[in-house]
C-alpha cells in the first residue's frame, strides 16, 4: 500500500490486489523517521484511476459485445502485471487518530511521508487495546471481519444515551437483548418497553429450557399480571396520565385534583369511588363529561384495579432487581395505543419517583419504537432531566427519523445496522459522534446481523461487528401465511 493523497481528514491510499482491505478496516500509516503513526479507517474502496483503463476494457469487447477470442503469446508474462495494475484500488480513508509512543490522540494536524511511510492493517484487538475500550465489565458484542472479538465495557453504556437503529430484520432487537443480558449479568436494573413481545422469553433457551437469567426476567403484561391500585398512585402520576395520555384540559384537571384529594382524605381511593365522586361533583357539566370520558378510559384499560390481590407492585419488582440485577419487561404487545401511553406514563412516573428518593441508583431503559408511546415532552426529559436522575435510555427503532434531532445530537453510542435509504442515513448522520461520510459509506453495505458501532463504547473508533448469537428463545417473529406450506 502507498500513501497517495490527503484532503482534509480524508487520506487516499493506493492498494494492490494482493492486499485484502475492506471497508471498515483500520490501517496504520507509520512514519518511522518521526516516530508517529496515523490511524485511518477505510470508508470506501474504489478502483484506482489507471490511465488507459478505458481503452483496455473497450478493446476486449469489440465483437458485438462478446469477448473476442484469442491467444496471447506472452513470453515475459506481462499479463499478470497488467491485471495487477488494472485491479489496483484506491482506499478512501478517514483519519481517526495519531499514534505516538503507543498512546492515541485525536490530532491529525501532521502529515506522514508519502515516500517513506509504511502502511499496514491494524488489527482491531490492537486498536481496542490502545484505545483502552475494555475494562472490568467486558461485554463481547461479536466478531470483527478478521474473526477477532469486539469487546466493549459495560461502564461505557452507563449514564449514556444509546440508539440502536437499522432496517427491519437486521438484528437490532438481538443486539439490544445482548446488551440487556450483559447489563443484568453485572447487576444492573433494566426496564424494557417491549412493543412486540420480543423480550418476553429472555429467560428461556432456544429449546425452551430455563436459562441463567430466568429468575431475573420479570415480564409484566398490562391488564393481565400488571395492574395497579389507585392507592398506589401519586396524584402527579395520574395527572400526567390524564393530561398527557388522555389529553385532559387544564380546568378539568384542576377539578380532578380536588376530587382526588377529597377521596384521599377519606382514604377512599378506589375506581368505584372515583366514578361516584365524578358523578356527584358539582362542577360544570362539560368538565364532568370530560372527567367521565377519561375515567372510563382508565377503567377500560383494565390497568387499574380495586382488587388488592390483583394488583402488582412495580416498586417491589424493581427493588428485587436492584439486589441481583434483573429486567422488567413491560409487554405492550396486546395493548392499545392509548393504554400503552397510560402504562408508559405510569412506569416512567414510578421510576422517577424511586430514583428521586434514591430507592434506586439507576435504571437502564430500553425503548422500542418509542415514538409510538412516548409523549413529545418526554424526549427532552429523557436526555436531560431523567438522565441526571439515573434513567439511561437505549432507543431501538427502524425508523430513525422518528427520533428527534436533539436526541441524535446527544447520543453517546450508536449501534447502526444496515440502511439502504439515504434519508434514513441522513437522519442518523445528525448524531454528533458520527461523520456522515462514514455512516453513508459503511452502513449501506452492512450484511444482516452486522452492526457499525459508533461512539464512546468504541472510543470513537467506528467498528463493524457481527453480533454474536444468543441462546435464547426467539419471540416476535413475523406471522406468515405461507409458513406451513413451505
Amino acid at each position, binding site marked *: 500500500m502507498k500513501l497517495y493523497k490527503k484532503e482534509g481528514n480524508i487520506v487516499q491510499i493506493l492498494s494492490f490486489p494482493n492486499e485484502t482491505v475492506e471497508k471498515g478496516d483500520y490501517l496504520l500509516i507509520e512514519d518511522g523517521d518521526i516516530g508517529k503513526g496515523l490511524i485511518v479507517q477505510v470508508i470506501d474502496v474504489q478502483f484506482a484511476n*489507471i*490511465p*488507459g*483503463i478505458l*481503452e*483496455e476494457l473497450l*478493446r476486449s469487447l*469489440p*465483437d458485438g459485445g462478446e469477448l*473476442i*477470442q*484469442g*491467444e*496471447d*503469446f*506472452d*513470453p*515475459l*508474462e*506481462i499479463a499478470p*502485471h*497488467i491485471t*495487477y*495494475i*488494472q485491479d489496483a484500488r484506491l482506499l478512501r480513508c478517514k483519519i481517526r487518530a495519531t499514534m505516538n509512543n503507543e498512546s492515541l490522540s485525536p490530532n491529525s494536524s501532521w502529515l506522514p511521508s508519502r515516500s517513506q511511510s509504511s502502511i499496514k492493517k491494524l488489527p482491531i484487538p490492537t486498536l481496542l487495546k490502545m484505545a483502552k475500550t475494555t475494562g472490568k465489565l467486558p461485554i463481547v458484542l461479536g466478531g470483527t471481519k478478521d474473526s477477532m472479538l469486539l469487546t466493549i465495557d459495560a461502564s461505557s453504556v452507563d449514564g449514556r444515551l444509546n440508539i440502536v437503529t437499522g432496517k427491519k430484520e437486521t438484528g437490532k432487537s438481538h443486539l439490544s437483548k445482548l446488551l440487556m443480558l450483559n447489563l443484568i449479568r453485572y447487576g444492573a436494573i433494566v426496564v424494557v418497553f417491549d412493543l412486540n413481545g420480543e423480550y418476553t422469553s429472555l429467560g428461556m433457551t432456544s429449546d425452551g429450557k430455563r436459562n441463567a437469567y430466568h429468575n431475573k426476567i420479570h415480564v409484566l403484561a398490562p391488564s393481565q399480571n400488571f395492574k395497579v391500585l389507585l392507592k398506589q398512585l401519586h396524584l402527579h402520576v395520574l395527572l400526567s396520565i390524564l393530561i398527557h395520555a388522555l389529553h385532559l384540559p387544564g380546568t378539568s384537571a384542576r377539578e380532578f385534583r380536588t376530587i382526588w384529594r377529597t377521596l384521599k382524605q377519606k382514604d377512599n381511593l378506589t375506581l368505584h369511588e372515583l366514578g361516584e365522586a365524578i358523578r356527584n361533583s358539582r362542577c360544570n357539566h362539560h368538565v364532568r363529561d370530560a372527567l367521565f370520558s377519561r375515567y372510563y378510559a382508565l377503567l377500560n384499560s383494565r390497568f387499574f384495579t380495586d382488587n388488592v390481590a390483583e394488583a402488582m407492585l412495580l416498586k417491589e419488582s424493581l427493588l428485587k432487581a436492584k439486589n441481583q440485577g434483573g429486567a422488567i419487561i413491560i409487554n405492550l404487545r396486546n395493548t392499545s395505543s392509548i393504554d400503552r401511553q397510560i402504562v408508559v406514563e405510569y412506569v416512567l412516573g414510578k421510576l422517577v419517583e424511586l430514583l428521586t428518593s434514591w430507592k434506586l441508583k439507576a435504571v437502564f431503559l430500553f425503548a422500542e419504537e418509542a415514538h409510538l408511546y412516548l409523549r413529545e415532552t418526554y424526549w427532552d426529559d429523557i436526555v436531560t432531566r431523567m438522565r441526571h436522575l439515573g434513567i439511561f435510555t437505549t432507543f431501538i427503532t427502524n425508523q430513525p427519523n422518528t427520533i428527534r434531532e436533539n436526541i441524535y445530537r446527544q447520543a453517546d453510542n450508536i449501534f447502526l445496522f444496515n440502511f439502504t435509504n439515504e434519508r434514513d442515513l441522513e437522519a442518523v448522520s445528525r448524531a454528533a459522534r458520527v461523520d456522515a461520510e462514514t455512516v453513508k459509506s459503511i452502513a449501506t453495505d452492512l450484511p444482516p446481523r452486522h452492526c457499525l458501532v459508533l461512539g464512546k463504547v468504541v472510543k470513537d473508533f467506528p467498528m463493524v461487528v457481527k453480533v454474536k448469537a444468543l441462546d435464547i428463545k426467539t419471540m416476535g417473529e413475523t406471522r406468515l401465511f405461507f409458513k406451513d406450506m413451505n
Partner: protein
Amino acid sequence: MLIKQLAITTTPKYSFPQPTIDTSLPQRFIELSIHSLKHAQNQPFQLNQQFFQQNSSEEIQTTRTTLQPIPLKPRLKETMVAAVDTSSIKIGETTKGMVIAVRGATIWKHKRHYRYMRFGPFIFHVTEENKKQVYNALQRTYLNSPHEHNHNGSPSLLQMPTRIASLLERWQQTMLSKTVNNGLILFDGSLTSGINDTPTQRIKEILDNARKKQNVVLAFSKMTTLRFNGYLITDIPVKHKPPYLFKITGLKPKPPIILLGDVYVAKLTKGNYAFRLDIDKQVLTEQKIEALEKLLGNDLFSQSYPETLRLAHILCTFTANEVIAMQHFITRKYNLKIINRPDMHKLLFGPFGKGETCS
C-alpha cells in the same frame, strides 16, 4: 482453415504455433529480450511514455491518375479475412540506452467471429553498444541466413523500436501468407519495398507465398504523402457513390524504392474517408477487384476501414495501463531503479515549456 493450421500445444510457459510455422524469430525475440534486460539490471531508469510513430519517407513522384472510379459490389461468398499489425513503444530510459517494448497482433475473421493471436510484449534494453548485435541477430534469424546482413548498417537508437517492430510484422505477414488459403490478407501500410525495414526480397516472398495459397494481399495506408495536382490522392474529389476505387498510375519511385503493388484510392463507405490501397501487382485486375468485393462482403467497415485491420491495430497498441505494467515488471524483475530526470523544457521555460514529447 487458419485455426486448424495454427494448432497450439501449450507448454507450461509458452505456447507457440506449430508445426508449419517457423518459430525461430519469436524464440530469438525472447532470448534477446531477456538477455538485453539482464544487462540493464540495477541501472537507474527514467520513465518515459513517448510513443513512436512510424513515418514512411517514401519518395515517389505521381504523374497520372485515371480518375475513373471502379464501382464495387460486395460479394458475400465466405472468405477468410486476416490482418496483421505491430506496435512499439519506448517505456523508459536507462543511463546507457532505452527500454522498449514491441507487440504484434494477427486477427482473422472466420464464420462471423474474430479471433486473434498476439505476440509479445517483447521488452528490449537497447543501447548504443548492443543495438547492432540485437538488430542483426533478429534480422539474421528472420532472414534465416547467417550471412545475409543489413547493407545499410544497424538503425539509430531512436529507430530501433520501429525497426524491431517491422521485423516482427514481416514475420507475422510471412506466417499468414503461408497458412491462410483462399483468403484476404490485410497489411497496415503500403507494398513499397526497398526502404530499410522493407527488404524487397522479403516482401516479394511474402506476396509469392500468398499467391501460391490463392490469397490476395491488400495493404491499407492510414496516411499517404502521394499527391496529384497538389492534392493528396485520398483528397481527390470524385463524383461517385461509394464503394469504389480508382487507380493511381504513373508512379515513379526513386531507386532503390520499388512498388510491389498497384496503388489505388479506395473509398468503401459513405463519408469523407478514403485510403491508399496497395494490391499485389502480380494479381490480375479482375482478381484485385474481386478481392476487394469479397472484403466488402465479409468484413465490417467503419469509416472506409476494415474492422479486421482496425482490431489488429487496437490489439497490438499499448495502453498507458500496459506501459505502467511493463515498467512495474522491469523494475521488479530486473531491479531497475526509477529516476526522475528533469524535463529540460520545463526547467528552462517554466510554464512555456510543454515537455519534450511535444517539442
